[in-house]
């Protein structure tokens, strides 16, 4: 959890960001209220689907910039349309984690 904010690599950020998913799955599956197994499976699949777009965005960035290091990525300039697509991908991934309306289950 802490490593998400400390790493300087987008791919490592993705790995640590996703590493909270199995504990979340186990916690909901064990200590949930009604229909907990079903709920935990739904949450797992839904969050995984959301973070797929984050992974695609990260792969696009690393393909364009040639690196996943934050400090280099900050100094890169992407095309405007690419930026829009990257924003959409990253926004979907973070919107399913946060209680955004129409995207939360």
């Amino acid at each position, binding site marked *: *959890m*802490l*490593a998400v*904010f*400390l*790493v*300087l*690599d987008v791919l*490592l950020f993705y790995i640590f960001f996703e590493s909270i998913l199995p504990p979340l799955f186990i916690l909901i599956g064990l200590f949930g209220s009604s229909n907990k197994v079903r709920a935990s499976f739904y949450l797992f699949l839904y969050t995984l689907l959301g973070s797929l777009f984050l992974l695609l965005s990260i792969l696009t960035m690393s393909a364009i910039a040639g690196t996943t*290091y*934050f*400090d280099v990525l900050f100094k890169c300039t992407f095309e405007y349309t690419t930026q829009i697509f990257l924003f959409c991908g990253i926004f979907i991934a973070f919107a399913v984690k946060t209680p955004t309306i129409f995207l939360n289950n």
Partner: protein
Amino acid sequence: MSLLYALLIIPVIGIFLIATIDNFGPTTAIIGLQKDQYKGIHNSAKTRLLLSIIGKDYENNINYYKNIALGATLLNAILSLIIYIFFDFSNNQFQFIYANIDLSFYDIYLGVDGISIYFVLLTTIIMPIALVSN
């Protein structure tokens, strides 16, 4: 400056202390019980005796776990406050960079900037609070 590295290692040390010291703890016993239940002998006197022994041990272990967890998270909170104090806010670059160049297969670089320092503080302060409130 490897303060951030210590911030990541301290919880791992805590987990290590919890996981290694008790080999015959509740988790092992519960897994064993479930295997017995699968065979259909969960009502035998042997299992009942085992359960009574675990019951005593379980309380001690829970307190031990809680103390270790609280100690590790408090240490982490103090460390993150030290990082916050020594953080240079007039700078917009990454600070406290820890470059692990000994690992040849992947570069694990650690660092904080002006936004992530607050999230680190939030995470490390909220964990002891959550443990104390339990």
